[in-house]
């Protein structure tokens, strides 16, 4: 696609429910990244993919968070048993390769846990 696309744009969920956030990277980009931005804060790295593999999962805040990428394209970030502290904007980015190439971000998914 022309840019990184994320869905949904907004998600309101009840505490304890599971949610899935989707990211569709720029066509041909092998690297995909997930970040989280809490209200008024900077960007916190969660996980990155090289192709379908996730060499670095160190940023995932707990075992309730998981992510996968299939076909070297679309990625899904899943949060199980959501908590209020999970409320944030989840941003996805892609780049041609991991490392020294320019990264482009999607518009984000605003998650609110009530």
């Amino acid at each position: 696609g022309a840019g990184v696309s994320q869905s949904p744009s907004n998600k309101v969920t009840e505490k304890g429910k599971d949610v899935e956030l989707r990211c569709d990277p720029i066509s041909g980009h092998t690297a995909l990244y997930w970040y989280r931005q809490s209200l008024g804060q900077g960007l916190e790295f969660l996980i990155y993919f090289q192709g379908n593999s996730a060499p670095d999962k160190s940023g995932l805040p707990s075992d309730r968070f998981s992510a996968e990428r299939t076909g070297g394209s679309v990625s899904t970030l899943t949060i199980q048993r959501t908590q209020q502290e999970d409320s944030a904007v989840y941003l996805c980015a892609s780049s041609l390769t991991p490392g020294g190439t320019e990264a482009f971000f999607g518009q984000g998914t605003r998650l609110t846990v009530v």
Partner: protein
Amino acid sequence: GIQVEQSPPDLILQEGANSTLRCNFSDSVNNLQWFHQNPWGQLINLFYIPSGTKQNGRLSATTVATERYSLLYISSSQTTDSGVYFCAILGGSARQLTFGSGTQLTVLP
């Protein structure tokens, strides 16, 4: 991991003024990007500038990798320049960008 510090944290300008935003980092850099986060939360790419100087309209950026800093210049600021400016670094053996805490810019009419 690499440390990224941005200054100033907040900046208020009158429309038409010029400004300089600074980004200091603690390690050698493979990738450095400047982003503008607009009021809707979208991160807009401004510059991909691991070294050297680039200009795009009223904006320009300079990275001096050997001295571990980058500068973003905004000239003749407009109200639409308001938002948060982030510097993001990829350094050392890392494969993901590390973001600074941002500069909140407010341009008053």
